[in-house]
Structure formats: structure tokens, C-alpha cells
């Protein structure tokens, strides 16, 4: 069956707000693949920047589950429903929604094939496929193992599974977090997770402990985290770096065992965050390079490998910008303006982008890293003298304020993208 655009619209909330058929036929066509922070922002802002364009957002799930703040669920501080959003308001803005998987991209024919069999053509394609967890990179850790040793690195069922394991663990248990080498989604995430799990253990199961086995010797906001751990969780968090033998070489799900060079660790709860790469559709479309990630032009976000395809968000090689929701949203807005300009045959002006990442060490203890970026030497580069982390010696009042701003940020970004 070949679905027409009208059929696709019929299946979506957009049905109540169809565009006039003439406008749909007349304007340029843009497809956005992936409805996370990057893709949903790109689709929405593209329609705003270029109202005459037909913008179709292709996303598998009708409900989006946000990763930022999902570590709060593990600590019993939040409900999964607070992480969930839908696409109704994006549809109301005139974006067509196709709740299907994109199964193939033909860059020559400029078309995207959907799981339902429909083939949509585009003038420009924006890919925001996010990450795929690599189930071929850590021996023993495959999709089945993730049901025993959750990664919880895509929010949803996995988050709830890890929460249940933490809840049913006896006091005195050992929780292991396996942290991957760079690059990966949300660089401070494993350490915020360790902090909030420690917060839960300290309150509810004080004889227990979190141990981070790390494939790195350094991590994001490291001094801030470590100082806070010394102050708040001296008996509840242990970090084992790469040079201390922290790299996990294989896992044994049957016995919940993590194997490093010199020892085996038997975990009561094992949270394994495996290596990652750009989502599968990026690999098959040819926009990912040998690293598994997608090189882009830092002005337009157009792929350096395939013309007329732009990549935003975690899947991209974004130079100094980390794989964060803030970055994804900032990149998507710049990319939307660039695509709109290109479709009109206008010149694209050089952008500036900002990132801020909030992490909670405790519900009332927030820390940040920020950066300002510009295109330089073909990548997005840090503007020297700007950005950096929260002051190391800031008073607790500043940490409290940053915890409040963290929550404000989550409300703001989800309202801009989905509200």
C-alpha cells in the first residue's frame, strides 16, 4: 500500500489542522527523521521559519520520553509521566506527523521510505536519529543482557526496570554503574546518576554503596562532583577510573558479574551504559563515518558526506558541543534557519550556539557546565574565555539556586519543543 500524505495526516493528531492542499503542493518539502529534542525542535522551527514548506516529522513513538531528569526517577524523586510528552502542539503548528519508522534513505532520489511502505520525497532532509546503544561492543552485553543489567540510557521501560531493581535490593547491596569511554550521550549523566542513587541509598538503604567502573580517567564536571560526593556521600560513592582498573571488558548477565582486567565484580544491581553510535538510519543513509557518528558543516549542519541531508543532535560530530538536550535544541534552531534560507536560495549567516547542562547532585544541589560555540576550522569550536563549570567554591545557596534553575530549564525546553 502506498500511503499518501493525506493518509499519514489522517493517522496523526494533525488531522484536525490540515494545511490547504495548494500550499502543501506549492512549497518545498522537508522531512525530519527523529522526534527527540533535536528533531522535534527542527520540525517546529522549520515550519515557523518557512511557513510555505511542507514539513513532515517521522517518528516511531507517539509519546516522547525525555532523558534529562530521568535520573530523578531512579531516586524515587520523579514519576515517568513527568518525562513524557506528545506531538499534538507540533501538529497544530502545521507539521505533518508520520508515526512510523524511517527504514531507508535514498539520497539520489531524495526519498525516505517508511515502515508502512510509503515513500516520501524531500528537497532537504534533517536527520536527528539520536543514539543507538551498541550491543556488539562489550562482550556479553546484548539486548537480552539489558533486561537483566539495564542501561537506562534511553528513558522509559529501562528506567523503570533499574528503579525496581534498586527498590528491591537489600540494604548493604552494591550498585555498579559501568560508564563508557567518550563520546556518548550526556557526558555528566553517569555521575549525576551515581549521585542521585547515592541520595536514595543514604536515605533508605544506608549500608549500601554505588561503585562507578569507568573506561575514562576524567569526566564532565569532575571536581564539582567529587567535592560534592566528599561532602554529601563520603561512604556511598566510589569511582574507579580507567587507570585504577575501572574499564569493564565483559559482563556475565547470568551472575550479574562485571569483569575488568584484574578482577570480577559481583553486582546486586548492575547498570551497564554501553558504547554508542548514531542511530541506525544514519548508518544506512551513509551520513555516519567510520567512528559511527555524523560529520557536519558547522554553519548549515549539512552532512559532510551526503548533500541535502542535515544532521542535528546526539548523532552528530559537533566539535566542542556535548551530546545534550540543550545542544540538540540549539543546533536544531540554527539548522532550521539555515535550511529555510537554503530553500529560499539565500545566504546562510554564521551562527553562534550555546550549551548549558544542569546536573543534580542532590535535589537541592545543582551544578552546571556551559559553553558558547562558533564554526572554526570546519567544526563547532568553544569560544575561548567563555563557558566552563560552576565555581568550585560556590556557597550552598548557589547550588540551591542552580537546582531551581535546573528544573526551570527542563520546564522551559520541554515547553518550547512540545508545549
Amino acid at each position: 500500500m502506498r500511503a499518501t500524505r493525506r493518509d499519514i495526516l489522517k493517522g496523526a493528531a494533525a488531522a484536525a489542522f490540515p494545511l490547504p492542499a495548494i500550499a502543501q503542493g506549492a512549497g518545498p518539502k522537508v522531512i525530519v527523521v527523529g522526534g527527540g529534542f533535536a528533531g522535534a525542535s527542527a520540525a517546529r522551527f522549520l515550519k515557523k521559519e518557512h511557513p510555505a514548506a511542507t514539513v513532515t516529522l517521522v517518528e516511531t513513538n507517539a509519546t516522547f520520553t525525555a532523558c534529562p531528569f530521568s535520573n530523578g526517577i531512579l531516586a524515587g524523586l520523579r514519576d515517568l509521566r513527568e518525562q513524557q510528552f506528545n506531538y499534538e502542539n507540533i501538529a497544530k503548528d502545521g507539521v505533518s506527523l508520520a508515526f512510523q519508522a524511517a527504514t531507508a534513505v535514498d539520497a539520489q532520489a531524495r526519498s525516505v521510505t517508511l515502515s508502512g511502505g510509503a515513500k516520501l520525497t524531500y528537497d532537504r532532509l534533517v536527520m536527528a536519529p539520536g543514539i543507538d546503544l551498541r550491543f556488539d561492543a562489550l562482550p556479553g552485553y546484548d539486548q537480552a543482557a539489558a533486561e537483566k543489567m539495564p542501561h537506562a540510557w534511553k528513558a522509559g521501560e529501562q528506567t523503570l526496570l533499574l528503579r525496581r531493581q534498586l527498590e528491591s535490593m537489600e540494604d548493604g547491596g552494591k550498585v555498579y554503574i559501568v560508564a563508557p569511554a567518550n563520546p556518548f550521550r550526556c557526558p555528566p549523566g553517569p555521575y549525576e546518576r551515581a549521585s542521585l542513587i547515592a541520595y536514595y541509598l543514604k536515605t533508605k538503604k544506608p549500608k549500601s554503596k554505588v561503585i562507578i567502573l569507568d573506561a575514562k580517567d576524567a569526566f564532565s564536571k569532575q571536581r564539582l562532583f567529587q567535592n560534592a560526593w566528599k561532602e554529601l556521600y563520603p561512604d556511598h560513592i566510589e569511582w574507579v577510573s580507567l587507570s585504577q582498573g575501572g574499564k569493564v571488558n565483559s559482563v556475565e548477565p547470568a551472575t550479574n558479574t562485571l569483569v575488568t582486567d584484574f578482577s570480577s565484580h559481583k553486582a546486586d544491581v548492575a547498570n551497564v551504559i554501553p558504547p554508542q553510535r548514531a542511530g541506525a538510519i544514519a548508518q544506512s543513509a551513509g551520513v555516519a563515518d567510520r567512528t559511527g557518528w555524523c560529520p557536519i558543516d558547522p554553519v548549515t549542519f549539512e552532512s559532510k558526506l551526503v548533500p541535502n541531508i542535515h544532521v542535528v543532535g546526539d548523532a552528530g560530530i559537533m566539535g566542542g558541543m556535548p551530546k545534550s538536550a540543550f545542544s540538540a535544541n540549539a543546533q536544531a534552531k540554527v539548522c532550521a534557519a539555515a535550511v529555510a534560507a537554503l530553500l529560499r536560495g539565500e545566504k546562510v549567516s554564521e551562527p553562534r550556539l550555546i550549551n548549558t547542562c544542569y546536573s543534580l547532585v542532590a535535589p537541592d544541589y545543582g551544578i552546571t557546565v556551559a559553553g558558547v560555540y562558533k564554526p572554526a576550522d570546519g567544526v563547532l569550536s568553544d569560544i575561548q574565555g567563555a563557558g566552563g563549570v560552576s565555581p568550585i567554591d560556590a556557597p550552598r545557596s548557589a547550588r540551591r539556586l542552580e537546582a531551581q534553575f535546573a528544573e526551570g530549564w527542563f520546564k522551559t525546553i520541554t515547553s518550547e519543543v512540545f508545549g
Partner: protein
Amino acid sequence: MHATRLIAALAALLMFGGMAAAAEAPAGASSCSGCHASNPKAGTPVPPLAGRPAAEIANQMIAFKTGKQAGTIMDRIAKGFSDEEIQAIAAWYAGQK
């Protein structure tokens, strides 16, 4: 007749030019709404930018940049922008509703 047509054309050009300028955000401006909500119902303690006087936004940014005004994060972000870039962003937000 000729003059009228010319004036009309000029007016259209001015309007169009004005619209284009209003539509295109200056470098960096689109990132701000990640924290400074464009939706007043978002529920954040971070102040909105849209519709605030340009001088107020620019002065505040320059105070963050020079360290005259303490901030949790804006001091680090403001240092990434030249005074001209700050003026352009401030003027653009002042013109947003």
C-alpha cells in the same frame, strides 16, 4: 503617477526589508530560549527576554560579561559574545512579542 508607483515600490521594499530583518534572529539569539522561556506559562524562575527594552537586556549582559553583575551561569555565557553581538541580540528580543 510615476512618482506614486515609485513610492509604493519603495514602501513595499522597506516593509519587506523590515520583515526580513525581524524574521532573521542574529547569531546566538536562538539559543537563549533554551532557558529564557518564550512561553510565559513554562513555569521557570528565569526571566523572559521577549519585549524587554533592548538597553536593559544589553546592559545586563555587559554587566555579566565584565563581572559587575554576579550570576550563576550568565557570567560564563555572556563572555562568549562581543558587545556588538550583545546589542544585536538585545535589539532582536526587544522586538519580539
